[in-house]
């Protein structure tokens, strides 16, 4: 499902601030696996997720997701791939504060030029899955941290992706909301999603749904 071979990622190559975020990363993630990528800030977790999501291209190496060599895809194709295969939950949620929950969740559907009825159906389904239906007309800026998190989850699910990537999903949540997040993740795993979570939150240490923990240190897997 996801396979990385000898991935390197260097920023500002040959420049004065050259920085290697990933060094010789090779790993395989099977379908329906829940994988935790653990490491401190700066260990390369977010960069790794961005490369799996085709948001970044590696400096060298090969990455295959759902049989596609995504690093070789031209930008337009990479965007199409990302829209249909990947659901990304960002650390700071990246929601439009002035829009409602429903509007935020429908944003990924805009480029698909679907009919309104079809959009409404998909949004409804995603809100239900993320447990945020009761807040669909609320403006995001009026939501709590947990509710924003669930809105971000709904948005990640609306296109029915195969893979969910979460970058520090509990970083801005309290204990109670973090546990609520874990419940949503459990539900998603039961539904067959492949989930990769980059985190240094210890709440995942005792989470029984985790199939594998990958430790990263200084841009390498240890």
């Amino acid at each position: 499902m996801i396979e990385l071979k000898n991935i390197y990622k260097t920023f500002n190559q040959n420049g004065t601030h050259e920085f290697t975020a990933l060094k010789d990363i090779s790993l395989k993630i099977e379908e329906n696996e829940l994988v935790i990528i653990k490491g401190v800030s700066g260990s390369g977790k977010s960069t790794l997720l961005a490369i799996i999501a085709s948001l970044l291209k590696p400096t060298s190496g090969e990455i295959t997701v759902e049989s596609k060599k995504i690093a070789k895809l031209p930008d337009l194709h990479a965007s199409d791939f990302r829209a249909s295969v990947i659901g990304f939950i960002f650390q700071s949620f990246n929601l439009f504060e002035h829009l409602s929950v429903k509007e935020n969740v429908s944003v990924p559907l805009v480029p698909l030029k679907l009919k309104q009825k079809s959009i409404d159906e998909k949004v409804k389904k995603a809100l239900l899955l993320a447990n945020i239906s009761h807040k669909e007309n609320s403006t995001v800026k009026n939501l709590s941290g947990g509710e924003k998190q669930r809105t971000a989850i709904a948005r990640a699910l609306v296109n029915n992706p195969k893979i969910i990537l979460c970058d520090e999903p509990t970083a801005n949540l309290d204990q109670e909301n973090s546990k609520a997040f874990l419940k949503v993740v459990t539900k998603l795993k039961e539904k067959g999603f492949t989930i990769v979570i980059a985190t240094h939150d210890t709440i995942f240490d005792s989470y029984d749904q985790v199939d594998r923990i990958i430790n990263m240190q200084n841009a390498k897997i240890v």
Partner: protein
Amino acid sequence: MDIFLSNQVQIFLFSESIIYLISLIAFIASIVIVKEWNFNSTSPKQYKLEKRSFLIMTIIVLTLWIKIALLAYFVYTIDSISVLIPGAMCAAGVISANQYGNPLLFLKIALLFLTGIWLILNSLDQKAEDYPYFKTKLWFYIAVFLLLSAEFYLDFAYFSHISTDDTVQCCSAIFGLSGDNHIPLNLNVLTLLAIFYILYILTVLLSIQRYPFTLFVISLLFLYFAYQSVVHFFGTYIYELPSHKCPFCMLQKEYGFVGYFLWGTLFLGVFFGISNFILKILISYEDKRLYRFTIIFNTIFVILCTLYVLIYYIRNGVWL
């Protein structure tokens, strides 16, 4: 050299120079990319090339579209400087002002077609995920660039050799019966028109049946005979003067700039007619939409030409 004082000439040559410079940069980059390109490689060099190629292709697309627009501006320029050249009443006289004019115009038209082919190639290549036509289109661009260089040289050679003192021939002299451009093959107007309409019908039939090579040949013949038909027959109905035979005067304001539309539809129809064969040779690809466009544009062109004749007859009750 007085001709360089004309605003239109300055704008045209300046634009051509900028576009040529940008094309040159793209050319140099293309040479590097085509030498090193290996799509299956996952090395840092290949990823860099892929990133750079996106920029270079964008630059090439932009410059080629501007080149297409510059052809129209070139025609407008030579038409507008006809007042400065004794004997010239339109672009016809200006283009024959020296030995560079006609070769330059033919090269520009040839480049128009080649540019179109490259744009289709690029579009097909970018729609695919694995750049299947990448090297082919780069080599094609390299070849096009060599012609662009010849065109650039001819642009300056042509304008620098236009004299505002020497008289040139006007369109009647050039395109009249005793000029160098009388109806070819000793045809008369009726037989010329017969060939024109038969060739048009053939382009439609061959597009329906999808014979790219035959359509290629017939399209080029259609271009030639359509040009002759417009000059020797249809143009006279546009000008409403039987002795006025000129492919350029109809580009002027007096005739509603209909020339741009007329020649534009003809060039498009012929372009789509020849492109499937060229694509088949280059990348073994055939697109049925191109056949459809051939029919559409050739039909618009033929209808427009015929309408001028019919409307004249309906209004005046006689043929010219």
